[in-house]
């Protein structure tokens, strides 16, 4: 059974709005300083090793006390500096890894978006080709039908004129196609 085309023209549906890349890419890689200030303080500071005792012989040993405090301060500063250097280096690496992570997500998102668009385009091509093909077939069939109709009308006209000629004294019915004598004319002997 010949399927009837549902449309004469290929479907020109409104193209879907391009969703685009919404920019919702995120990364779980933190870029904050890994060692907090409290941790740094806890593990970099310590009291001066020499604590002057109250009273007695060493109570007024200010020189040694100052030396010990300087020693403690320099160690504290060195440790804090070391922690800061580590934090900064770690944050730089984290920032780089985070950017790489987001970039990979964007790349994959773009590729997926391209695939979706390509699929939509291919499906539109298929629909269009089917619609065009069906329209072509419908046109061909319509032409064949009209030709047959025209032929039928011509036949009917010929039948009418031929039948009328039976009553024509000239007796033109004796001549068939191409001027040859027709069977009916031959039978009637006219």
């Amino acid at each position, binding site marked *: 059974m010949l399927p009837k085309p549902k449309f004469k023209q290929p479907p020109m549906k409104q193209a879907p709005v391009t969703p685009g890349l919404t920019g919702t890419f995120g990364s779980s890689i933190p870029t904050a300083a890994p060692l907090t200030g409290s941790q740094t303080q806890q593990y970099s500071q310590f009291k001066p090793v020499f604590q002057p005792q109250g009273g007695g012989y060493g109570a007024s040993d200010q020189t040694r006390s100052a030396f010990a405090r300087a020693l403690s301060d320099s160690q504290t500063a060195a440790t804090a500096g070391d922690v800061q250097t580590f934090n900064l280096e770690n944050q730089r690496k984290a920032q780089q890894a985070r950017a790489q992570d987001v970039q*990979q997500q964007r790349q994959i998102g773009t590729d997926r978006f391209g695939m979706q668009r390509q699929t939509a385009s291919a499906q539109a091509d298929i629909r269009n080709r089917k619609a065009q093909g069906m329209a072509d077939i419908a046109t061909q069939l319509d032409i064949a039908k009209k030709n047959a109709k025209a032929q039928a009308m011509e036949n009917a006209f010929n039948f009418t004129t031929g039948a009328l000629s039976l009553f024509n004294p000239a007796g033109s019915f004796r001549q068939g196609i191409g001027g040859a004598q027709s069977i009916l004319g031959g039978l009637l002997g006219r």
Partner: protein
Amino acid sequence: MFQTGSYTPTYDAPIKATGDVARRMRNDAAGQMAYYGDTRQYNQGAGKGVAAGGKGAQFRAALTGDIESAKRATAANAGMLDYLKDNATEDLRYASGAADERNSLASLLLDRDKINTDFDLSGQKRRMESQLSQAQRDASQKAADYARKAKTSQSLLGLFGLA
């Protein structure tokens, strides 16, 4: 093609030291802090001659003791800080590795979807071609029917000399 769970990430958690060793080392170093300092301070006979056992030697010994003590204090803190740094580095390594794995899996899933999509599109195209061919055959058949009917009636009229 793949079994269920083939795309499950394998990164589960960062691998960290418990910190027991670091804490023990810190306690040991803190204990040595006082010991080294005190021991050095009691060794006051380092000098010779009139300076032996004098106040200068005692003071120098005390300062050296303070330095030794500070070294242990620094070592005690450094051990804990190294432990914290290692954990922080591991956190970053884990987060970065897990993100890489997630993205690799997403890329694989995209490849899988592309394969499936191409397969489906190919099927849709074949189905459309088949439907068009069938429609073309039906239409040819019908057109031939029309032509035959017209030809038959014409032939009949011709037979009777009416055409």
